[in-house]
């Protein structure tokens, strides 16, 4: 059986996998990191989004072996060891950006990538477009969009540039 060695939430792991093992199966079933969800299993809903070397990807549409040697961050890897939430998590809480919570881990991971990759600022429209790959069936997205806009200044340590608003 092949082995895959990678870094997950800062920890080096080596796991026995099959060729067909998906990254999300490795995370959930082999490592017990069940915060990453499988919603549609067809790369549409985004509940399975994790970061691969800092970039958001759908872990249900990637083989575990494709992540060999790479660094994966899941929702469990965001908060500090003392329990302090990541600013994006904090803003999701503050703005009530979730109801049932199923899509939330993928939403948060996708949103962090979105904010990180737009140091110039994000308009509401850009945030909505940036969430094209994440489906939420409860909230109607409004509070998610608000939470992401509110997390931008916290993550970049400055006010959102006016032009982007």
């Amino acid at each position, binding site marked *: 059986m*092949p082995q895959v060695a990678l870094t997950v939430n800062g920890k080096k792991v080596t796991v026995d996998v*099959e*060729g*067909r093992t*998906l990254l999300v199966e490795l995370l959930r079933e082999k490592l017990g990191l069940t915060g990453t969800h499988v919603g549609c*299993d*067809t*790369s*549409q809903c*985004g509940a399975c*989004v994790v970061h*691969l070397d800092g*970039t*958001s*990807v*759908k872990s249900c*549409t*990637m*083989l575990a*072996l*494709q992540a*060999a040697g790479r660094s994966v961050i899941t929702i469990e890897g965001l908060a500090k060891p003392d329990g302090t939430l990541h600013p994006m998590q904090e803003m999701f809480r503050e703005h009530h950006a979730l109801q049932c919570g199923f899509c939330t881990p993928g939403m948060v991971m*996708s949103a962090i*990538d*979105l904010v990180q990759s737009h140091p110039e600022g994000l308009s509401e429209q850009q945030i909505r477009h*940036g969430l*094209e*790959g*994440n489906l939420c069936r409860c909230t109607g997205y409004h509070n998610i969009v608000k939470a992401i806009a509110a997390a931008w200044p916290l993550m970049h340590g400055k006010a959102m540039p006016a032009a982007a608003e």
Partner: protein
Amino acid sequence: MYDFTYQKPASVADAVKLLGADPEAKALAGGMTLIPVLKQRLNKPSALVDLAGAGLAGISVAGGTVRIGAMTTHATVANSADVKKAIPALAKLAGGIGDKEVRHRGTIGGSLANDDPTADYPAAVLALGATVETNKRTINADDFFQGMFTTALESGELITAISFPVPEKAAYMKFPNPASRYALVGVFVAKGPAGVRVTVTGAGQNGVFRHRAMEAALQKSFSQAAIADIATPADGLNSDIHAGAEYRAHLVGVMARRAVAAAG
């Protein structure tokens, strides 16, 4: 998914060797189509040969040509300052494929080799008169696309790069399926070294095609007015639960006029 052996060769030559040694092996690019296909057990390869380590990613611009390596992701093309400057329509097209997570993994070579009839890239490759480079030869865009999910690629032949001549002007407009983001209809309009071209993806039963009547009209006068009265026959266009052939034919006209306006 049925199980398979995973291999990640470090060069194109090694990848070709692995694929040649096993007729049941398949090449894996970004996996955004292949992995869902395998999940549905629609295909049963003995091995997947991952091209991610074969050195095929990267963009270069020289002598009026933008050359994009086959394993370059849609996100990289969309965000490339070089592509945005040389062929902004191509960067915009790449930025409109799927969603951002799909764009982070999906590749131009994978998209072209798959030749989905609703994919975006085929419209750009054909409209710009691009050249598809493989490990064996170069293939003109006009010869590359041969119908739905069918290309000129032979067994054991891998796309290595695509070379786009920089056009004078170009634009792409698509009406995306609101769920899948694939093109219900996408029209790419270009005026460049390959002449004036209008290509349509998403609509044709045989995949991407050139709209000769619009090309002839735009050749005379590159304006929305020139194509305002050109009707697109619904014969040979797709009809499905998302849109009928007549509606797609109508959308071809709308998208083409918008593309001409955007190209300026």
